[in-house]
């Protein structure tokens, strides 16, 4: 077992523990902080799987952008209020059952069909361009140019939609 494999298990276990904390904390602020830690450990896993650019994007966009935005909104709308709900144990049991069922189904398929295969080899196309970032950049602006442009239009639409929805009232 190589050292990369040992570190994969350590980071995967830590990110799963913090993901469990995200969904079990009562306070939404604590959940958001745990989510940031989860994303950091996930970025470490991405580095082990030879996706260095995605690790950087994960930290910048998710840990920095998305969770930062969430923290701002949680503090804006006082998230404490949802904490004094009455017991919803039945819902929790059903949700845990559904999640467990899905996990068992997918894990059974994955464990059998993918046994013995290895991950972690450097992507051949990335090696051709001399690195992960260069490889992704070169492919993104040539072969995947149309999806890239569609994604930018999607981001513009999301930005306009978020501004319109969050505006106090529409003046006509």
């Amino acid at each position, binding site marked *: 077992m190589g050292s990369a494999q040992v570190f994969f298990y350590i980071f995967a276990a830590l990110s799963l523990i913090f993901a469990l904390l995200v969904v079990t904390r009562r306070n939404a602020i604590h959940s958001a902080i745990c989510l940031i830690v989860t994303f950091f450990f996930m970025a470490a896993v991405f580095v082990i799987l030879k996706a260095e650019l995605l690790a950087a994007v994960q930290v910048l966009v998710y840990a920095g952008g*998305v969770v930062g935005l969430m923290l701002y909104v949680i503090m804006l709308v006082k998230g404490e209020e949802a904490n004094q709900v009455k017991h919803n144990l039945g819902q929790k049991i059903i949700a845990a059952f559904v999640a467990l069922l899905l996990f068992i189904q997918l894990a059974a398929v994955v464990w059998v069909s993918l046994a013995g295969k290895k991950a972690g080899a450097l992507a051949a196309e990335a090696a051709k361009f001399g690195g992960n970032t260069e490889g992704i950049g070169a492919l993104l602006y040539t072969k995947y140019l149309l999806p890239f442009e569609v994604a930018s239009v999607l981001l513009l639409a999301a930005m306009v939609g978020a501004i319109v929805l969050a505006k106090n009232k529409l003046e006509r």
Partner: protein
Amino acid sequence: MVPLNHVILYAVLMFAIGLYGALARRNVFIVLMGIELMLNAANIAFIGFASHLGNIAGQIISIFVITVAAGEAAVGLAIVVAIFRNRLSVNIDSFNLLKW
């Protein structure tokens, strides 16, 4: 070299945790965080397969998933703010305007 099925098992576990968060919790922010966890689980699977197949396309699709997740978070939080103005609550049980 990490075995591929361990990577995908990690992704499946992360997806199951996200699904539990989205189904079991009543705080709308934690539901959104569960959805983010599920999207990230898909990213892990994409990156695991990209690394196994030696093909960088999986990483590019992960970038698009991150784009969509960022847009989804922005619009979702804007919807939460808009509903909070009317209902003064972030409890998902009070978001029943479309229920009959």
